[in-house]
């Protein structure tokens, strides 16, 4: 079943700005779906329309088979949203924020309390439950919004840059949590500017730019389409006379002990290392110059893909 289906979504703001020019998305049930695009590409507008925070100009949206125009209550019940900006009452205790949110979905108070406890504990906020939301750190506020989005147990969770401004330790723990709830059956749509995050978490991907869908495919399929990768090699030897290319691989000397190698995907890495050894080059370590998805993302935006 489709968790989300968007067909030819258009949005023109009253000032004439055309934010969406025909976005099409298909998210399957159980997907961990990356929605990528540069700033202003239309990601947040699309999410705003899905969540009924922005009125669409035209187009069709259905959530788990419920048309957002004709079965709005049923469609909304399926969705949980973690927005980009903090949007809770900073003068409310955080446990109350969750219980109230559950109440808006018609969940009885005792069940709401149990769920609030469950998600606050899972997101390491239980000790802070009586504190006002304004007293939380930035990372805690992000986790509070995730807990709030889950309290009515949605089938589709939409996260709009959930890890923006969050330190690496908390980001990693959030990734683990999101992987866990996705494995439990919640479909997730994620927008992020951290492309390693999308590559690590998501199985499907869409790239939108200037209000249009440029690409929508499996993550593996997209990554497989990358023809060349560039690696940075840390060398043990001070080699002053490196060639420009070896065995069809382009070399670029960064400094005496650092070398960049662009290698075709079909080229064997073993062959490359043999050739480097033959030239007296001793490699100590290697890493990708850029994230693979980042390279593909830029290619798609440049129309090279």
């Amino acid at each position, binding site marked *: 079943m489709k968790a989300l289906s968007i067909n030819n979504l258009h949005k023109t703001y009253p000032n004439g700005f055309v934010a969406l020019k025909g976005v099409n998305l298909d998210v399957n049930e159980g997907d961990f779906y990356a929605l990528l695009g540069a700033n202003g590409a239309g990601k947040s507008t699309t999410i705003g329309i899905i969540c009924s*925070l*922005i*009125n669409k100009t035209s187009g069709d949206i259905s959530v788990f088979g419920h048309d957002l125009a004709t079965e709005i209550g049923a469609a909304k019940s399926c969705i949980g949203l973690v927005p980009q900006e903090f949007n809770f009452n900073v003068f409310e205790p955080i446990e*109350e924020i969750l219980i109230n949110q559950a*109440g*808006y979905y018609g969940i009885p108070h005792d069940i709401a309390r149990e769920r609030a406890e469950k998600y606050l504990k899972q997101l390491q906020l239980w000790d802070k439950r009586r504190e006002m939301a304004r007293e939380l750190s930035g990372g805690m506020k992000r986790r509070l919004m995730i807990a709030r989005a889950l309290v009515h147990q949605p089938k589709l969770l939409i996260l709009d840059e959930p890890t923006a401004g969050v330190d690496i330790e908390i980001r990693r723990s959030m990734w683990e949590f999101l992987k866990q709830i996705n494995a439990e059956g919640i479909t997730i749509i994620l927008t992020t500017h951290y492309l390693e995050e999308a590559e690590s978490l998501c199985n499907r991907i869409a790239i939108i730019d200037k209000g249009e869908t440029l690409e929508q495919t499996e993550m593996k399929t997209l990554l497989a389409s990358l023809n060349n990768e560039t690696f940075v090699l840390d060398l043990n030897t001070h080699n002053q006379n490196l060639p420009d290319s070896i065995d069809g691989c382009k070399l670029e000397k960064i400094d005496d002990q650092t070398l960049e190698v662009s290698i075709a995907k079909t080229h064997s890495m073993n062959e490359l290392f043999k050739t480097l050894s033959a030239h007296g080059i001793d490699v100590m370590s290697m890493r990708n110059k850029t994230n693979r998805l980042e390279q593909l993302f830029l290619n798609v935006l440049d129309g090279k893909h």
Partner: protein
Amino acid sequence: MTFSQQYIAFKTIVIKEALRFLRIWVQTIIPPVITVALYFVIFGSLIGSQIGNIGEFTYMEFIVPGLVLMALISNSYANVVSSFYGAKFQHHIEEMLISPLPNYVILIGFMAGGVMRGMLVGLAVLVVSLIFSDLNIHNYAVTIAVFILTSMLFSLAGFINAVYANSFDDISIIPTFVLTPLTYLGGIFYSIQMLPEFWQNVSLINPILYMINAFRFGLLGVSDIPLTHAFTIIIGFIVALFWYSMHLLKTGKGLKH
């Protein structure tokens, strides 16, 4: 949403609204009571004793209904306008907008919050008035009906103000420049029978005149306005403002792009 789910959602909004103004009771409940108590002392007791009776009532007895209703009106309005605009300003109104809550539940939830605060302050003022004058309720049904309906009306008006407001300045313009003058000119301190005929007719344009007189009828049994006119005006305004508020929620005016 089923009816029982809608009831839970409504109850959630009502409790949230009640907690909001009760948490800050020093700002929301006490100041209006002190202000009206000063009116009782200055206008009712000190100046009123020089004025003498209006009809068969002392001046203090005459102004009590109007001052109670003034407190009710301003607090019902202030509660909804500040709460709803605050929710817009901090964007936590989105918590409700993304949920399956029907618009009318959102509206009556906020309206109930305004009614609760308005009635609480109104009752507190009524209790304070007992220090200065005896309370004799002429007609309980009229008193209670006007008390509740007027509070509903101004809660709805506060809601519409909040929807249109783009800054905190915008939520004080209507109370300062419209509501307060209309309330003072609505016959709190005088009977319109005391005015020249021209100004009597002008006063009839003021809807608050009808509410104050209907409430005065409930407490004292006297009114410058026929009761049926007053109830027609109050209920008419409630229906019109409710319909318009629902229209604003449906179109997302001030809430959605």
